[in-house]
């Protein structure tokens, strides 16, 4: 263990674990990759917080990125929307910090008071990656708190969406837990008090029987009025809308059970079904909880607002001042610094604009703009600061206009689940059987008629049925979760089983944004390759780094007279030869650059060029082959068609490849497919896919870091699990099969109960045994079968 730590500290940055450059930074005999990491280390060690490095190896994250500016946090209008609570002494704010990833993070963030004593409390919620900070606002400002966090490498992500819908605290899960607690409490007590009667233990006095009966009845009231309340409300609402869902027979069963029990106990004619009533509600609520227990710490509802910053720097009368984004008007002049995002369509007035639109349009190459040109919102500036004049407000920009489309405003039809369809017929048959049984006995024996009518409604109360879907789907959900496929809700699984058409985005979805592939044209000997690798090793440029990785050669020769022109090329002497690498313009070649080319000159002779391109995600080829057998595959790319030839083999039928698609065109394309009756699954990653993701029956956002921004969707797929897509689809189909099977099992239980019920012979004991037995059978069957199929599909 110690040996391993030594190894890491020797060759990697002590703070973040990145590779060390040739001349690393030193502090206390530790080595760092950049000034940022060194700075964090020094700050922590001066505040006696070095334990941070003891809890985990290399707990930090790379500090090489540009630091964001937080001057907008001094504006009271902006901060008012961000804080949870504030008075004239303290302020409480909850911040989302995406880099939280290990126990060291928790430790450091909860010891924030050691750095800034004005922070009185800080609490981390690890799964939600949030920290809640209480600070004395007389001694420190919000901006200073955020800047301190940023200084120790924990920069919070503050977005426009935070401001607009400050997370409404969601207590629905807490309420559900309380309801389960009440139902469980009553169920336990009622069961104890019912046992003597069931088994006739000892010679019970009539006195005790009545006493226990009354206590039981008392216990059933909170269950009926509090725990089971939602079933009555839902059944009533649906009935008013003319829909028969599963809640109707459930509510009916619960109500009838209570009325009959109350009647029997008050008149002293029987023990009632209180035991069954409480267990039913208890199990039902557990099923509901299983279904709800999804990944609330992942956000599936993000839109452009969580991508955009909260404020932008406005230039007014020659002065810079932060302006909340929603107050930005046409004609305003704004200043965008490097690595900032352009928030609204604007005209470039000053500066050199090189913009990365990959997230918005899917185009992988940065775009250069000249003065006077229109710059669309959503691009990230890669060069120095630029000045712009806004031509359209934020909500009307080219990109954000997409959200005004009806696909976003209208409520999408809820996913049709099997249990919804089945319960319609179930309810009708149930009521019919109950009435038939009641009418049959009505002529001969009125009491028996009532007994059989109510007994049918009680015993057929579809408890097992109501649980089969939640338990199957919850099991599948957790299997998917283990495989890094995160679904918004359990209903998504059933939708996944119905998909027959799959539409892919290109950049970032089927290509891996992290890995770059090279293709060399020309001739290089092994010796010369070694020189190229040695020269490139000196550069920090991403292309050089990728090239070194791709060449896979160990360091050979030292480099003399190394020179680098940032972003253009590098040169130096290796093993006595002069080498130049870079763009055609840099090397003085009269060639047209197409795509990202790296040309090579050795001793003044042109030797060829490396063409860099993106690499397909691992397993994409096999995936396309597998999926093509059962599904219709399409490709929609915002990119130009330079990859058409490469991609054509994956998509049989060339008419299904479409390039240069705008976000709106993507949305319309999905709509057209749906109008032809297709069930469409869209896989995308950027904002430009947001419309298509929303419109499709099942929108899946593909991402390499699930905490990064992903557009609104039904599911989030981790890039490493991309090749498992066919298995996920198979598993979803199997899950539906399991639901059907468990449906049959619960019907058999119902039929057995009905056998007693229609004869009016249902005793409380039979009900009390049948109900939990069927429930336990269903829970075991669904969880085990779901896991069995998962193993078969190689997901476990």
């Amino acid at each position, binding site marked *: 263990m110690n040996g391993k730590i030594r190894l890491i500290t020797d060759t990697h940055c002590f703070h973040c674990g990145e590779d060390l450059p040739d001349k690393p930074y030193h502090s206390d005999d530790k080595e760092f990759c950049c000034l940022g990491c060194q700075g964090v280390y020094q700050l922590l060690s001066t505040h006696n917080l070095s334990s941070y490095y003891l809890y985990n190896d290399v707990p930090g994250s790379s500090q090489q990125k540009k630091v964001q500016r937080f001057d907008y946090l001094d504006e009271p209008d902006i901060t008012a929307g961000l804080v949870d609570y504030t008075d004239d002494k303290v302020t409480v704010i909850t911040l989302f910090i995406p880099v939280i990833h290990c126990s060291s993070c*928790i430790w450091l963030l*909860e010891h924030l008071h050691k750095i800034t004593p004005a922070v009185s409390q800080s609490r981390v919620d*690890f*799964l939600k990656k949030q920290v809640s900070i209480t600070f004395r606002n007389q001694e420190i400002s919000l901006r200073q708190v955020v800047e301190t966090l940023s200084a120790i490498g924990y920069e919070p992500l503050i977005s426009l969406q935070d401001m607009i819908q400050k997370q409404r605290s969601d207590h629905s899960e*807490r309420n559900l837990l309380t309801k389960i*607690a009440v139902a469980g409490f009553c169920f336990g*007590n009622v069961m104890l008090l019912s046992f003597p009667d069931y088994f006739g233990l000892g010679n019970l006095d009539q006195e*005790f029987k009545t006493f226990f009966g009354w*206590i039981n009845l008392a216990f059933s009231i909170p269950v009926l009025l509090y725990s089971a309340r939602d079933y009555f409300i839902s059944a009533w609402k649906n009935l008013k809308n003319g829909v028969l869902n599963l809640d109707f027979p459930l509510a009916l069963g619960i109500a009838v059970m209570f009325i009959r029990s109350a009647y029997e106990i008050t008149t002293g004619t029987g023990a009632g079904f209180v035991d069954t009533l409480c267990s039913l509600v208890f199990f039902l609520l557990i099923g509901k909880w299983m279904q709800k227990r999804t990944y609330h710490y992942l956000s599936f509802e993000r839109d452009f607002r969580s991508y955009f910053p909260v404020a932008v720097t406005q230039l007014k009368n020659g002065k810079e001042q932060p302006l909340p984004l929603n107050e930005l008007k046409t004609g305003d002049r704004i200043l965008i610094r490097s690595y900032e995002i352009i928030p609204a369509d604007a005209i470039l007035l000053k500066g050199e604009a090189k913009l990365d639109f990959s997230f918005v349009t899917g185009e992988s190459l940065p775009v250069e703009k000249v003065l006077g040109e229109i710059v669309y919102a959503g691009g990230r500036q890669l060069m120095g600061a630029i000045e712009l004049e806004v031509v359209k407000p934020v909500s009307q920009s080219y990109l954000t206009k997409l959200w005004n489309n009806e696909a976003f405003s209208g409520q999408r039809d809820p996913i049709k689940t099997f249990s919804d369809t089945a319960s319609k017929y179930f309810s009708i048959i149930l009521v019919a059987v109950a009435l038939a049984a009641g009418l049959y006995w009505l002529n001969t024996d009125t009491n028996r008629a009532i007994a059989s009518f109510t007994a049918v409604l009680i015993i057929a109360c579809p408890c097992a049925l109501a649980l089969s879907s939640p338990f199957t789907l919850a099991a599948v959900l957790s299997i998917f979760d283990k495989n890094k496929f995160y679904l918004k809700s359990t209903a998504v699984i059933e939708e996944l089983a119905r998909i027959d058409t799959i539409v892919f985005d290109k950049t970032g979805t089927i290509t891996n944004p992290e890995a770059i592939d090279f293709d060399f044209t020309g001739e290089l000997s092994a010796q010369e390759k070694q020189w190229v690798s040695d020269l490139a090793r000196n550069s920090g440029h991403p292309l050089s780094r990728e090239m070194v990785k791709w060449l896979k050669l160990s360091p050979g020769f030292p480099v003399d007279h190394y020179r680098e022109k940032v972003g253009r090329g590098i040169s130096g002497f290796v093993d006595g030869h002069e080498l130049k690498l870079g763009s055609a313009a840099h090397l003085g070649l009269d060639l047209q650059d197409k795509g990202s080319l790296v040309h090579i000159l050795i001793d003044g002779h042109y030797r060829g060029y490396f063409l860099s391109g993106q690499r397909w995600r691992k397993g994409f080829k096999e995936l396309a082959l597998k999926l093509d057998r059962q599904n219709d595959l399409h490709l929609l790319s915002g990119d130009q068609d330079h990859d058409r030839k490469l991609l054509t083999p994956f998509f049989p039928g060339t008419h299904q490849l479409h390039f240069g698609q705008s976000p709106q065109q993507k949305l319309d394309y999905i709509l057209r497919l749906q109008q032809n009756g297709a069930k469409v699954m869209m896989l995308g990653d950027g904002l430009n896919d947001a419309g298509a993701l929303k419109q499709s029956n099942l929108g899946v956002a593909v991402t390499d870091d699930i905490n990064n921004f992903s557009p609104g969707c039904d599911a989030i797929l981790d890039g490493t699990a991309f090749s498992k897509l066919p298995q996920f689809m198979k598993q979803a189909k199997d899950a539906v099969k399991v639901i059907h099977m468990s449906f049959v099992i619960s019907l058999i239980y119902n039929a057995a109960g009905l056998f007693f019920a229609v004869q009016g012979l249902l005793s409380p004991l039979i009900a009390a045994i049948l109900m939990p037995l069927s429930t336990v059978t269903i829970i075991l069957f669904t969880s085990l079968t779901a896991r069995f199929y998962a193993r078969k599909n190689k997901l476990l």
Partner: protein
Amino acid sequence: MNMIYMLIGFSILLALLFLLAFFWASKSGQHDDLYTPGVRVLFEEEKQEKVPEEKSDEDHPAG
């Protein structure tokens, strides 16, 4: 036999107390974050030399 009335009364009262305790815990947010407190309890108050994972395993009772 009358003792039973009293015993049942007491047992229900006791159970009610536990139920109320659960309500209080739920209301004060103890079930909102089930992960972080488990990590937090392993941190030591003062600076330590040893890697905590090794130490906490010894201290931790079985189960």
